[in-house]
């Protein structure tokens, strides 16, 4: 059964959750990415493994953590270690290839490169953001990354002010030439649409637009254009998905608002 009464935040969370496959190791950051990882675990990927850069692996998450160092990530984990172990798990191909990461950014370009550092001149920025954290590491190491973005022209840019986390760099083949493994952003989830990275071109394309959103509206809110030839309408949340998200994942509405 399809629901009609849902928020865009709920839609975004569930679009991300659907990307996670059972058995995936899910690297989650703060906020909505944490919620999406939790939703996947409760809805479609019960054997996925929640994993945090602070070093907690397979946390139980009885309550939604509000930061990756929230003590709620430590409860009933398989192991509580530290940053070195967490990033080594992703740099290590044996485990790293099973990781799907969920990230956010201030800017993204057509190649899936992310800026979480600064807008304007790096040395005297107009707006300074938090910086890489583990974002650059994750985008360097793991084959699949979901980027959460607000669908705004100032965020989908022709040229990043600062390239914090590598996607396809300057396009097809550039990642390998720089010495990076295959990986980086593979999916972009916004409040209007879901885009994917086409390995053949090294660029994003429109895969799904949300019910009620037009393709023109999507393109109008980006500085660059993307291929829309294969785009289809996204399935709205089901009542079952929404029920679990609201009642089990974020009953206090800490992230859903």
């Amino acid at each position, binding site marked *: 059964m399809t629901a009609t009464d849902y928020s865009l935040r709920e839609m975004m969370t569930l679009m991300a959750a659907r990307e996670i496959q059972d058995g995936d190791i899910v690297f989650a950051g703060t*906020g909505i990415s944490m919620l999406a990882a939790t939703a996947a675990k409760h809805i479609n990927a019960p054997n996925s493994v929640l994993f945090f850069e602070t070093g907690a692996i397979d946390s139980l998450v*009885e309550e939604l953590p*509000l930061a990756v160092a929230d003590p709620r990530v430590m409860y009933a984990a398989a192991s509580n270690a530290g940053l070195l172990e967490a990033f080594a798990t992703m740099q290590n191909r044996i485990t790293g290839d099973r990781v799907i990461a969920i990230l956010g950014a201030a800017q993204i370009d057509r190649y899936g490169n992310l800026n979480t550092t600064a807008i304007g001149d790096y040395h005297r920025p107009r707006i300074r953001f938090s910086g890489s954290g583990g974002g650059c590491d994750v985008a360097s190491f793991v084959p699949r990354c979901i980027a959460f973005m607000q669908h705004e022209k100032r965020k989908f840019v022709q040229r990043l002010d600062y390239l914090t986390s590598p996607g396809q760099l300057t396009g097809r083949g550039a990642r390998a030439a720089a010495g990076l493994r295959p990986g980086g952003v593979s999916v972009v989830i916004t409040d209007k649409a879901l885009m994917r990275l086409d390995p053949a071109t090294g660029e994003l394309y429109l895969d799904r637009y949300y019910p009620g959103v037009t393709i023109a509206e999507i393109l109008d809110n980006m500085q660059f254009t993307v291929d829309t030839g294969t785009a289809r309408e996204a399935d709205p949340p089901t009542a079952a998905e929404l029920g679990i998200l609201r009642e089990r994942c974020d009953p206090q509405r800490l992230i859903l608002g």
Partner: protein
Amino acid sequence: MVETDKVMRLETAVSRFMEDGAHMSIGGFTVNRNPMAAIYEIVRKGYRDLHLYAHSNGTGVDELIGAGCVGKLEIAYAGNGKTAPTCIRFRKAVQDGMLLVEDYSNFMMSLRFLAGAMGIPFMPTLSGLGSDITTTWGFSKAMRQADPKIVDQKLVIAENPFGRWGAAEKVVLVPAINPDVTFIHVQTADTMGTCRIDGLTFADVEQAKASRRVVVTCERLVDPGELRDHPEYNQIPFLHVSAVCHVPYGGYPTAVYRHYDYDADYLRAYAAAAKEEAAYRVFQKRHVYGVADHQALLDLVGAARLAAIQADPRTGYAVNMKRG
């Protein structure tokens, strides 16, 4: 309290091991196990031009920057959970040109502390190739060369000297860090300085072992015999530690696993005040400069707030605490 060679009051340890211009690091991660009592004491004593090495230390980093203590910062992430996705005083200081920043990633900063702990000049990683982290320098070459305490190059990209062994053509070499002093807060320390951290260690162990001096604050100060019942649970042997200070709630307002949660009200009030100059001065005066020591801050906060953040013995955090 009787002070010994190692066991001393926090005020004594800060005076003894801190100075203007010191290269320092602090333990913890965003809202967790920051050595807050030590940080507030550093702020009260008014040290200036500090060179701070951080991965994602959050609360403590922003307090030190907000108080004007930090001149140079090498960091991976300045955010603090839900209340401040970008640390507010950090953002303001950078935008106003008051703080010189060099950006790395979390793994790079952790590896840099590890290299320092291991006594080697650098560590390699596959992180950051093609990124502006590798090409854009916050500290200029001239500045680096003029200061013997700062390495000449931010990092180096090198060909893999082992050919394609390890399936890598290139590696990023990140330089070691050996701070003058590191402050960490742990659940349990003994009077010789050995530490036992419950839960995530973040990069505390590497930071401590890389540092020339280490000041430990602890929730519980015990006799060495207690920690030697299970030495395998201890992460930092006393060899690395210069001072041990018994400071219950020394991590407050950040969380200390199995002891207390973060104080969401305090962090929210801090974030609200930090956005506005006058309000921030009032907040600092009330919570830092206006109190004699950490116990006085706890008295100001009051028993009811501390009771509300008490960790539940099953989960290690305050179950159903109001956080929204």
